[in-house]
């Protein structure tokens, strides 16, 4: 085994694969370059380009608007983080409530079903308006009037309904034989969920969950309708002062830049989980 030396044939094969890899990379690079150049030339040579360049892509305005947008973005990030955590936890609880079996749990099941039906159906903007204007109007003592908290609560209401359905789909996708095997080992419903069903279910739903989180990240901007200054609202304020739209482009880019690492991270995590479990092979 230690005496193994690669044969001439294998060396030739590896050389061929390497040259193929380099060739494909070359082709990919060239074709990407052509597409990008064509797009840039097409846009830049359009008759309105000069004007668009000034109002949307002005470096001067971008630099000026950037600090306030970044400050606004901090609100988006905080909302995303805290709402995200609450949503994931609450969504999971809802999903578990819906997957309870037996007549005893009918009220819980029904409640969870009504909840998801209601908040998945309500447009998020309406939930938000009801929360930020409706709740303060009740004049309850001890309840905050802060639009950030109330807006965050509205996001939690809507998104946990979505996330609950994603979790439920994951739970139901785990083959019944897994449940049967776990229960046969004497594991209770709770232990079966905790150690057998959920670990498999959650892995499967990581990509759709990420989808919801990215969507949430953008919807955190909606809290600005009640006056909280987030990245989009900061951009809007700046545009209102200067009549230049560059700040919107900057805010948009900042959001994109924020989602990319998140996507790559989950891709990597899912790929690693798959590698560990699957048989492998080339197909």
């Amino acid at each position, binding site marked *: 085994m230690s005496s193994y030396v690669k044969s001439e*044939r*294998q060396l030739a094969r590896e050389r061929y694969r390497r040259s193929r890899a380099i060739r494909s990379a070359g082709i990919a690079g060239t074709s990407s370059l052509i597409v990008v150049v064509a797009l840039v030339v097409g846009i830049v040579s359009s008759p309105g380009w000069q004007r668009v360049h000034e109002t949307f892509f002005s470096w001067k305005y971008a630099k000026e608007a950037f600090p306030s947008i970044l400050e606004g973005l901090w609100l988006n990030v905080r909302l995303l983080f805290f709402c995200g955590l609450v949503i994931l936890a609450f969504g999971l609880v809802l999903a578990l409530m819906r997957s309870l079996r037996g007549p005893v749990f009918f009220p819980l099941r029904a409640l969870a079903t009504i909840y998801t039906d209601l908040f998945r159906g309500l447009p998020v903007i309406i939930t938000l308006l009801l929360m930020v204007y409706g709740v303060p109007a009740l004049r309850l003592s001890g309840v905050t009037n802060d639009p950030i908290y109330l807006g965050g609560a509205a996001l939690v209401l809507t998104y946990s309904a979505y996330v609950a359905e994603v979790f439920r789909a994951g739970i139901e996708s785990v083959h019944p034989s897994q449940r049967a095997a776990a229960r046969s080992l004497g594991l209770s419903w709770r232990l079966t969920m905790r150690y057998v069903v959920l670990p498999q279910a959650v892995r499967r739903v990581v990509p759709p969950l990420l989808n919801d989180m990215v969507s949430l990240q953008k919807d955190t901007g909606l809290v600005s309708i009640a006056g909280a200054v987030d990245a989009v609202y900061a951009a809007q304020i700046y545009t209102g002062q200067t009549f230049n739209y560059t700040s919107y482009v900057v805010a948009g880019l900042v959001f994109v830049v924020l989602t990319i690492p998140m996507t790559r991270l989950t891709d990597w995590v899912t790929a690693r989980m798959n590698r560990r479990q699957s048989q*492998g*092979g*080339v197909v």
Partner: protein
Amino acid sequence: MSTAVLRAESVRKVFGSHVVLDDVDLEVPAHTVTVLIGASGSGKSTLLRCANLLETVDDGAIWLEDREITDPRENADRVRQRIGVVFQAYNLFPHLSVLENITLAPRRVHGVARREAEDRARALLDRLGLAGKADDYPDRLSGGQQQRVAIVRALATDPKLLLLDEITAALDPELVGEVLEVVRSLKEDGMTMVIATHEMGFAREVADQVCFLADGRVHERGTAAEIFGAPQEPRTQQFLRRITEAHRL
């Protein structure tokens, strides 16, 4: 001797630091049956998966008839179109009926007309005693029936070579017979096959050539009579003794 349908030379396969196949040679002449025996993890399945290009070899080469299929220039889909595979766990598509499972490759890959593909599928099903099952879904069939459908599916594209990977290992004992019966009749038809199996009685009966694998190497090869009658290598003797003891229990 006629030319080999499948030929492997110094095949090596490594998973991480584990050498699964180490310098394996194999020659399968046309219209013969080669049986691979050996303990679980000895490399039987990996060898079959390499022959079907489901795994890439890490050294050595495999030929299907006169073409080196392990050449990276070779189109793997083209190679697989000429090889039929039956898996241990059947691997039927649960969302397709029996007839659709069988006609999928002939229609979509080989461009056979629907009527023709279905007629041929029904004829094969009929021959294997599955005449009434064409429109059923796989999950409604017994294990033995599912595995026979899987064999029909592998045969439907008229392969040069059939690879059978422990096809009875997941079956109830009373269903093993019906599947092996099918393999017997394929041998009578002159089908070239490579079979990985734990059914020693069956191996002895159908094999023209038996290869004993252990730790990724072919420790001994010969006719069924040689290997089962008078094994030479201590590893082979030990393996066969254990199997015989297990069957006596």
